[in-house]
Structures are given as structure tokens and as C-alpha cells.
């Protein structure tokens, strides 16, 4: 059933040209150079240190690594991280 739902959603984004992050509950990540990264639609912090930030997503996780991380803002839906970002990686995405 869940798979069917996913399929319908995927089809909708393609044929109706709806933004994928709204329909499929995906994160929207905005970066400003290597200084700022802005993640919307996250599902909680899993790990936070100076060098890495691990966020839960609807599906899987996102791992951001770098240096001197500071969580400038943290809201239920969005996070703004400041620091030197080296790498953004998705983990466990089916």
C-alpha cells in the first residue's frame, strides 16, 4: 500500500509538475557557498557535533560534515547551520 502511495506521488510530480519537496515530503536544502546550509523539512536531529550534523528525514538521513558548526536557528521544520561545509551526503535512502 505504502509503495503504491509512493508511486502515485512520484507520478504526480512528474505529470502535474508539482514541486517534489511538497508532494513527496522531501528535504529542501539550500546552501550559500560553504558558509551556510539551510535544511527544510527535516524530522529531528540525530547527532550534532562541531564536525558533523546528522538529520532524520522522512526516508533515511542526511549527513553534513565540515568544521566549526553552529546551529544558528532550529525550528520544527527548518535548520540553519553555519560553519565550513565540506560534504552533504544522503544515507539509507531506499
Amino acid at each position, binding site marked *: 500500500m505504502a509503495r503504491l502511495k509512493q508511486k502515485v506521488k512520484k507520478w504526480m510530480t512528474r505529470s502535474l509538475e508539482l514541486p517534489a519537496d511538497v508532494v513527496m515530503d522531501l528535504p529542501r536544502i539550500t546552501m550559500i557557498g560553504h558558509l551556510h546550509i539551510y535544511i527544510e523539512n527535516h524530522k529531528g*536531529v540525530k547527532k*550534532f557535533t562541531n564536525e558533523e550534523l546528522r538529520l532524520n528525514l522522512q526516508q533515511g538521513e542526511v549527513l553534513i560534515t565540515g568544521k566549526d*558548526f*553552529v*546551529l544558528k*536557528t532550529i525550528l520544527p521544520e527548518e535548520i540553519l547551520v553555519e560553519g565550513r561545509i565540506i560534504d552533504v551526503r544522503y544515507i539509507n535512502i531506499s
Partner: protein
Amino acid sequence: MKKFWTKYLKGTVIVRVEGEHAETFLNYCLNHNIHLWDIKRMNEFELELHMFIDDALHIKKALRETGCRLRVIQKNGAPFIIKRMISRGGFIIGMLSFFVIVFLLSNMVWKIEISGADPKTEHHLRKVVNELGIKRGKLLFRLPDPREVQYFVTEKMDEVTWVGVTLDGTTFKFKVVQKELPEEVKVTGPQNLIAKKKAFITDMFIEQGQPKVERNQLVQKGELLVSGNIGKDKNTRTVAAKGKVFGEVWYLTEVTLPLESTFETYTGNNIDKHYLTIFGKNIPIWGYGEVPYEHYQVLEEEKSFRMFKWELPITYLRRDVQESEQVVRNYTEKEAIEKAREMANEEMENQLDDEAKIKSGKILHHTMDNGKVNVSMYYKVIENIVKEQPIIGGD
């Protein structure tokens, strides 16, 4: 992101959260709408973060559920500053009393300057001014304003013609113009006296000169009354003719008076309203509410305050609302004529000098049109008709 000022006003704290899984604390805060920002990892077990003071006070449950401990590092913002200020009362009192003292000193009379007066007049003026309450150390806003002072002083002092009063900062400045000595009797050259207007002579008082007219004689304007040439034949010489010649003069005046007239009078009821005016905005301090009168007039009185040499944008305003009444006055024709006659008499008397006397006044005729009465008055007046005319080219 909230604006810096709202954060400052609400008061914020920097805290360190210690725990095995500090992230769970973050997630808890996310889900319970507790606002956090500027989160930094200090070491493996410790996060440093900013939060609002009122959130920090209700966070015990979160700490218990997530197994974290909390330490306050720094307190920022207005609530803490106010708290500190209250605990240092002397400081605040000093600051306030400084302003109060400067304010009071800026609104005091410090100097009374008098210029243009001789020592005697100056002494007298100082006394009069003292009587008004203008002394060194008096508060300016309890004193009458310079215009009133000027009026009072000019009334009270006979030896001055005019006193100019200005208030320059904390100094009352009086500029005095003293009365000159009475003018000396001017020496006049040889002159005749002639008639100022057409008149019927009733009385003559000649000091010097040769009268050329008699009592009960009708003279035209410009006719010679008293000649400056006296003596006979060879002994003639010219002098300044002097004297008074009274004659009966006729005047015609017209007065117009409407039968119906409206005017306003005060009923004697009034309301006082007090305001503080700040940057042109009136803030009522006493006397609220609508004015219950149908017709009224407002008298305003304003007092300003000073700080150092500047006038503060705050002034005290008093509004005296006087109830007035529209009164309609109706005259009958007869009354109107009588009134017009009175008015004409008054006008006539104002026109004439002290020596003149109204012998009789008669209504010549009156007309009515457009609700107005036009009255022509005929006056017989006895007055001095003398006018000096110098003799030119005499020997």
C-alpha cells in the same frame, strides 16, 4: 529569526546542556516549541545554546525526560539589567535626582537684568518686581509670563514710559525707557490767532494781542481773531498773540444701528482642562470628557519647561473652556433711536478735547431701512477755536 531588540527586551540566557544524548534535548525542544539558537558543541557531552529566559524557567520537565543537566553561563537582556538596577538603588536615585536638579535649576530665575534706568528707578523697579514674586531662585513656571509682568510693571511705575520685559533663559531682562522731563514752554515768535472753523463766538480770554472780533460775532474759518500787532501808529510792535476764544461750533453726525443684533456673552460656567504637550501632541492629565456646552470659547495658556539652555519639547497647556451664550438683542424703533443718540453723544465727547462742552444735541431726522436705523444728530458745541498763525516778515 527574531529581531535583536525583541530578544534583548525579553531577556535571554546562554546555557550549557550536559547529557549523554544532548540531541534528544534539542528534539524535545523542537517538538515543544521552545526556541533555541546559536547551538554549539563544546565537548562530547555538552552543548552550549541560547534561549529565552521564560523558556529556561519551564524547562525542568524537558531535562528530566531527556536526562540532561543545565548550567546557566550568562544572562543577557533588559530583565536582568532592570533587576541589577533595582538592586543598586542608589545609582538610580542619583541619576534621577541629577535630572531633577538640572531640570529645576534650568527653570529658575537666576538673574534680573535692568538696563536703561537710573539707580533710583532701578531700585524702585526691583522692588516692584520683587512684589510680583520675581526673585532669584523662583521657579519660572510659577511666575506670570513676561507680557503680564510688563503690563503690571508699566502700570505700577509712573516714572517710566515703557518697560520691555523679556525672558532670556534664566534671566529676566528689563529694558526701561524713562520719562523725560516735561517740555519747557516753547518760546514762540510773533503770531496771530485765527479761527480754526466757522463759529459763533461766545467767550474770549486774551492774554496778549489785539482782539479783532467781539462776542456774539459769527466768524468764518481762517478769520483773524487776535492780532499780534499792538500799539498805535509809530509805536506798533508785533508780539505773540495768546489767548482763548470760545465759539459755538456745529457738528453733524450720523449713526447707524441695526435693530437686531446677536452677540456672545459668557455664562460664567467653565471647565479647566490640563494637558502635557509632547512634540505637539496633547496628552490630557486632568479634565477629560466632552465639553458639555453648546457654545463655548477656549482660552489657552502654555508654560514651557527648559533643560540647560534648550526648551524641552514638553509644555504644560491649560485650556479654559468658557461656556458662552448667543444673545439676540431686539430694539424697537424708539429704543434704537434712543440708543443711537447715546452712541452719538459718546462719540462726540470722545472727539472733543477737555475744554469743549456740548451745549445741545438734537436729532435732525431719522430713517429706517433694511432693519437699520440711521440717525442724523445735530450738535452745538462750545470749544476753543483758536489756531496760531505766525507773522512772517514783521520787523
